[in-house]
């Protein structure tokens, strides 16, 4: 039973999320469901999803990277989601 499935259930299975983000109080960020990393720098990481672009800004470290999932740590100052 995953955390994301529980969250989807709680809203009545109305959505099939393209991506999921867990933001841990500005110190860590977990993103899954992205397709690729389009930009990487110390201040900004841009993740590309199927129909969205996620821009994460701050003082960032890539703590872990797996297929479609990334864990960032550091001082996360902003998460912006835009349509593609």
């Amino acid at each position, binding site marked *: 039973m995953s955390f994301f499935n529980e969250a989807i259930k709680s809203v009545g299975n109305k959505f099939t999320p393209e991506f999921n983000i867990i933001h841990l109080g500005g110190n860590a960020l977990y993103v899954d469901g992205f*397709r*690729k*990393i*389009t*930009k*990487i*720098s*110390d201040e900004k*990481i*841009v993740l590309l999803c199927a129909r969205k672009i996620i821009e994460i800004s701050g003082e960032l*470290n*890539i*703590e*872990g*990277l*797996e*297929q*479609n*999932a*990334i864990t960032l740590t550091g001082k996360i100052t902003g998460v912006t989601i835009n349509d593609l």
Partner: protein
Amino acid sequence: MRDIISRFKGYKRIEVDGYNQSFLLTKLADENISIEKVERKSPKSMFFNIKKKQCKKTFAILEKLCYNYSIVGEYGISKFLKSALSRIGLIIGVIIFGTVSIIGENFIWKVEIGGNERTDSLSIERRLEDNGIAVGMVKRKLDAFGVRMLLNDMDGIAESSVEIVGTTLKITVFEDTEFTNPITEPEISLVSKYDARITRIIVDEGTAKVNIGDNISAGTELISGEIFDTNGESLGLRNAKGRVYGIVSFTASTIFSETVMTEKDTGNKEVRSSFEIFGLKIGGKKPVEFRTFRQETKRQFLTENLFFPIKYTRTVYYETCRDIIDNDIDGAIESWKKEKILEMIISCGGSETEAILVKTDIGGNLTKADLFLQAEMPLI
């Protein structure tokens, strides 16, 4: 904690040179390669950790994409064991040293003996060794009380203390106090201290040189240390011992006056009080007006326990004047006679045998008293 766990899992840290880092990371992630601890050194260079079992696959991708890479670190239990194996000698040495130290703590490795001046340390060590107490002994088997008793039994040792300090057995002994008889010169001759007539002779050792009834002067030899056989041949010298008594005569004379001048109080008095602090005297400086006086002074500290001690002095001056009174000559002479007899008995140890007192009026209200005493007393 995660760092420690990841280190034991088996990771390699690689440095990758090449642009488009995001593309490479995405590509590696797409190929199911777990990437950790990404550290970007520059837009062209970055470091990250990959699992050891995914190394081949990762390197193949990197080579295929024309990225240069190098392994900069390796972590994991196998690496740790390899590293440990290369230092196996040191590790074994440390283990052996630790083991020996721990085991060695339970034994006595040194015996220290102190406090002995006359008793030889070697004889103490032998005494201990004979009873199984020596270097290499197990500490907990040592009976300190038993060792103490063992040492206390030794000649010349009055008491001892036994304690274990670390791996050292410390023994301190207290030796008997050595008493030596004072060296005395043999008295080969006993002489008389007084002029006397011999009354009794008791010779313990030696030969009497005087006879009863002899009149001798001070310094005469009474008992000689030399002894003789019946033929008069000398048998050598001994320590002369014995007692010789004799009648000794003493004389004493003094002059008494029929009148005596004394001092008596007139009834007038003056009081002077003063205070003294740190040697500074306040008051009591007014001179006494009496021509002749006697004084009584009392001193006391008023603040003895304080930092500034204040001393209080009170002096009372009593005016005196001269007074001539009649003297009881007979009483005074009798007192003087008793005093002289007592003096002779105490100082010379004699017993009074005869006392003759002669009083002579020499004029001018003066009387001369002559005392002649005879007593039997020890002459030596």
